[in-house]
């Protein structure tokens, strides 16, 4: 295992987290992580040493997800659609308020259009700067900020509707 791979192994938990934002189920999310790792290994030479590996891999994951969802849509034309069960975590009554809030944010994030969901997740969950998030999504800064505004206002509006204004 080389240094690149060691750094990638350390990133796996965060890659899995970002994949949860994209995919509907944990199993799909981990499949997406695996695909991302395979693609990253195939393109090691395209990564510039000294730049952020996380941003680079988030971008690969985003593109892998776009490719897969396109392929999936084509397959769905032929095969019965898979169950579209919304993934909601196990909400035990004993869970602390703070955890409930995160679950609710997860649920509202899942309802956002994909472009807004990714923008919000990269900045709020992954803590990327606007510049870094725009690079991952390969969009201009203005596009990123408008997705952030629309996505976050939508989440806040729906939390308020659900009687849980934050």
């Amino acid at each position, binding site marked *: *295992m080389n240094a690149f*791979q060691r750094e*990638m*192994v350390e990133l*796996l*938990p*965060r890659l*899995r*987290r970002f994949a*949860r*934002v994209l995919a509907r189920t*944990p*199993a*799909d999310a*981990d*499949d*997406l*992580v*695996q*695909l991302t*790792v*395979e*693609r990253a*290994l*195939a393109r090691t030479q395209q990564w510039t040493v000294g730049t952020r590996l996380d941003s680079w891999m988030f971008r690969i994951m985003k593109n892998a997800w776009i*490719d*897969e969802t396109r*392929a*999936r849509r*084509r*397959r769905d*034309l*032929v*095969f019965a659609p898979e169950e579209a069960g919304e993934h909601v*975590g196990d909400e035990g009554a004993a869970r602390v308020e*703070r*955890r409930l*809030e*995160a679950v*609710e*944010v*997860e649920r509202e*994030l899942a309802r956002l259009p994909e472009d807004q969901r990714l923008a*919000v997740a990269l900045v*709020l*969950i992954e*803590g990327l*700067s*606007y510049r870094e998030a725009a690079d991952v999504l390969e969009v201009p800064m203005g596009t990123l*900020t*408008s997705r*952030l*505004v629309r996505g*976050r*206002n939508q*989440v*806040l509006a729906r*939390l308020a509707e659900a009687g849980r*204004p*934050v």
Partner: protein
Amino acid sequence: MISKETVLAYVDGELSHEEALAVEAAMTSDPALAEEVARHLQLRDAAGGAFAAVLTEPVPERLLAAAREAPSERVARSALVRRFGPPHWAAMAACLALGVLAGYAIPSGPVVSGAGGLQARGALARALDGKLAADEGPVRMGVSFRDAGRAYCRTFRMDREALAGLACREDGRWAVRTLAEVRPQAGGDYQMAGSAMPPAVLAAMDQMMVGDPLDRTEETAARAGGWK
């Protein structure tokens, strides 16, 4: 007037010191603005904990294995594809649904389903073995190249069946990795140029190719060596 973008940039720490001070000054005289900032700060706080549980979960062994795998051991295959079934079957089913394969018996067709996926047979297998790029015939070869495992791969087109695909050498056979429908061009005819590959095939090639495509000399040598 502070814009929504500025409110978020403030919350996200994207403003300069002076700009941030201006927002804070406006908040003191504008309770609605102060409330908006507070709501977004709370959302940011709550969102930071979203999906946090996954960070402390043990990483599945298969992901660790994928990350540690030596590049030479890698096989360019999609994890999602493995889970959801081979895409070539989907492509074939799509072709069936579109009537492209109508009257075309799968058991005697150019591919057969084997343990490791679809395998080329018959005229397709013979063409993959023996044809060079640009040779004439019912099966035409496109680009030959090597994948990450140093195996030879070739793109092909079957004009009568309106199918194109990508096959790689695996255990002495041609494993069909991608199969896609060739759509008629605007003129109503199938474009005959070797470069007219469906996007799915081009994308698969792009993802799998390591190094440059083989030139005619290299292709001839690879054929002479049995594509080993």
